[in-house]
């Protein structure tokens, strides 16, 4: 809030608010906070031009910790409230911080419709597959059979894959990142902000208290190179400690192959194109599950599409130009009026 600091290029620490961060020690949310602050600095966004909107849950405390404008709202509704913020002032950089319970359970409707409308904002989905703030109930992303406080005998329902929801809602930008890779997360956040339209960033986030190591098979030091495929636009889909494993199409399915085996060369490996309008391959990448496949990370989809808030403001401008009314008085006095003397 110091006037003087606003004139210099901002550093990540300049985006820290004066509030003590109260997440549990070791929580994955800290990494997201760091990555976002780095991205804001890298993007050279002015503090007053950024607004963070959140719902309810551990991750929804996020706005209190960023020294920009912030609105900690009600459970599930952040995307709807952020829609109003962005439509009211399209010049703002609008970010939504929301968890898997917040966005995929109570706020599922707003989540899919914000994506469908393609509002120009960023939605960070903190997916820890558990309800943390209410102390450990299963969420819409918890795996079938998950034993939690509210499912002592295991759940009897299948989870959502957030990417499938997003692509099914005709999403224009979807990225996935682990909370263990702040560098990747920062670059993805930068791409998300640059994208025109709704950018969904799913963070595989660890809850140290209620769902510790839920993503460990993906993020563990020993396994991550084999279990993560970090996608880069225009680059072959290679992964593994030796960078010798890759994906290719076999009929209508993806398959994992190893370069040097069965006459496979790098030329056989699929090249990632995040701009493919047809979402089929992006669906296939985002659906990949262990152990048969690695988990796809990075920007999976990034396509141009009509942007809701831009179209809305264009209509207003067009109507202003074309209207037969120049003022409210013109409107009030139009049509059938009569005088009483």
């Amino acid at each position: 809030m110091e006037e003087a600091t606003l004139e210099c290029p901002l550093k990540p620490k300049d985006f820290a608010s004066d509030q003590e961060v109260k997440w549990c020690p070791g929580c994955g949310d800290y990494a997201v906070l760091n990555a976002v602050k780095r991205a804001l600095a890298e993007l050279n966004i002015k503090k007053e031009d950024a607004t963070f909107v959140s719902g309810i849950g551990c991750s929804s405390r996020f706005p209190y910790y960023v020294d920009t404008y912030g609105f900690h709202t009600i459970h599930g509704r952040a995307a709807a409230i952020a829609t109003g913020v962005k439509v009211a002032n399209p010049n703002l950089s609008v970010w939504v911080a929301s968890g898997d319970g917040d966005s995929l359970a109570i706020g599922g409707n707003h989540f899919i419709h914000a994506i469908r409308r393609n509002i120009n904002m960023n939605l960070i989905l903190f997916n820890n597959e558990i309800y943390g703030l209410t102390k450990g109930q299963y969420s819409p992303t918890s795996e079938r059979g998950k034993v939690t406080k509210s499912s002592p005998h295991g759940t009897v329902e299948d989870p959502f894959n957030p990417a499938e929801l997003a692509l099914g809602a005709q999403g224009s930008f979807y990225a996935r990142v682990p909370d263990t890779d702040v560098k990747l997360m920062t670059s993805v956040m930068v791409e998300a902000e640059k994208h025109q339209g709704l950018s969904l960033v799913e963070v595989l986030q660890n809850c140290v208290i209620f769902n510790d190591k839920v993503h460990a098979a993906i993020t563990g030091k020993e396994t991550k190179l084999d279990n993560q495929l970090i996608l880069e636009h225009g680059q072959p889909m290679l992964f593994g400690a030796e960078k010798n494993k890759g994906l290719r199409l076999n009929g209508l399915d993806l398959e994992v192959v190893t370069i040097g085996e069965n006459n496979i060369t790098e030329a056989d490996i699929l090249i990632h194109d995040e701009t493919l309008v047809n979402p089929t391959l992006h669906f296939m990448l985002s659906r990949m599950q262990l152990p048969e496949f690695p988990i796809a990370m990075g920007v999976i989809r990034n396509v141009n599409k009509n942007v809701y808030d831009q179209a809305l403001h264009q209509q207003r401008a067009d109507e202003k130009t074309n209207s037969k009314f120049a003022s409210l008085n013109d409107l009030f006095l139009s049509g059938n009026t009569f005088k009483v003397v």
Partner: protein
Amino acid sequence: MTLKFGIQNNYKPLPFGEIREGLMKTELESVVIKFAGDSGDGMQLAGSLFTETTANIGNQIATFPDFPSEIRAPQGTVAGVSGYQIHFGKSGVHSPGDAPDVLIAMNPAALQANLHNLKPASTIIIDSDTFKKKDFEKAGFDGNPLEDNTFSDYKVIEAPITSLTKTNITDLGLDNKSMVRCKNMFALGMVYWLFNEPLEKTINFFDNKFKKLPAVCEANKRTLQSGHNYAETIEALTSSFTVLPAKKQPGTYRNITGNQAAAWGFLAAAEKAKKDLFLGTYPITPATDILHELTKHKWAGVKIVQAEDEIAGICSAIGASFAGDVAITTTSGPGMALKTEAIGLAVMTELPLVIVNVQRGGPSTGLPTKTEQSDLQQALYGRNGESPLVVLSASTPADCFDWAFEATRIALEHMTPVILLTESYIGNGAEPWKIKLTEELPDIHPRTLDSYDENWKPYDRDTEKLARQWVVPGTKGMEHRIGGLEKDECTGCVSHNPQNHAIMVATRQNKIDKIADFIPLQKYKGKDATKLLVVGWGGQFGILFGAVNDLQKEGKNIAFTHFNYINPLPKNTAEIFAKFDRILVCELNNGQFADYLRAQFPQFTYEQFNKVEGLPFKIKDLKNKFNEMLEAGNA
């Protein structure tokens, strides 16, 4: 009022307003007419065209469209009857009227639906082509009601409307369905003749509406004229009435519905606050017309989000308010229920927001197209926690403009959500509005702070209003966070401190209470009365006023006060109540305002007159009740 018919001789068309020789000419103070037919018969159009014409020649008018919630209920059934009632005249038009003097019934079902509500000796125009056996059986008559004594006390005009409509337009090449569709204009033509009203306005309407469909245009115009000619030709229809033009305040008027007036009030308020208007909403009967109206006016800068649900409707509005727009959301009862949690967020974050509830019959889906005032306590109390906000109500279709404007003013100047209660009856009803030009309206002063102030905190307040300031994203150096968690009264940071919570709860209440210092004192009509005070609120104003007015003219000891400011109440409310022996609270619910008054001013005794039938009061019923109480006082 009894209408008298005489014999028509040597009819010649005359300019409007001149008395025809040879006719029993009846000059009337005011008349109620009702168009009724199948919901596909075009009754709403006939009614609204008549309204335009009669308003344009300077009558006072009040209208009441009464339509089924089914889009097209089975043809010829009572469930499918759509009605449009118009009360017009030179004076005494305070409501759409109890019962019609002239009923136009396009089929037996329309007759059946209005049978319980006919005045003795009133005139009924029916389409005799629709009175076949299967038609009156479908409508629930045992036999042909025209052939028994059912209508012996009425003046019934049987006209073969459907067949005459078709006969006159067969040469235009329209299919049967399109020809039959014109029959509402035949009926309208007859009514114009009956009331000596000009056809030009309606002819112009068709010239504009069907520019590209000349055959349809011609068919409608010709049918209108045929109806008019028919009425003047037939022996049965032997009189016409001149309703004397109204004496009104000089000015320019237009006909307006309550929902349209509310929409325009918000446009005007945003302009006077020098802000953009934002509407976040979800379609719901009977509030959707506010959305329909505002969406035409993007040229005026309005931003509209038709959201995925009621919750997103209000939430987008709250987001827009946070970002600096004049934010409103519009709904009806069930939608209010869904918006409840978000309203609490607006209370907690002390953001300006107007929530319009065009009330309908409840609970649950209830009676979507019918009127009621049963969401008052929901507005006052329907949230978790101590959650005070401002509740206002509008009185008439035209004054929805003023109350939309006032609701916005209070929201912006006092930093609070405001609930504006209207009701189906006035939202869809119409009356002449004396046009207010924007320069006649006061400026609105939002509590905006748009420059850097190093000492500012989000919950700093002024002492006069206890309102915080509105600092919107984009304001340099003033970055801050608000939210639904309780905040420290000084720093604005999250606080769970017990004393702080108590202070904040009290402050939020005091802020609303203090608004009573910024609103006018309550008025009442009947300065010399002492016996009976009639208390009303909301959209039943016209009917209550009319009933009290009639008794006051008879010299009865009765007074009337009508509330638009519900929370807070005007500061002199108790002073007015103290002047009277008895207080009667009249409302379309089981006593919600009466209960509220009991809580506010327990020193008085409140008697109740309630109606929960999905319909407005009737002047007759009110007068009976008032007289009964006045006479009991004499005994």
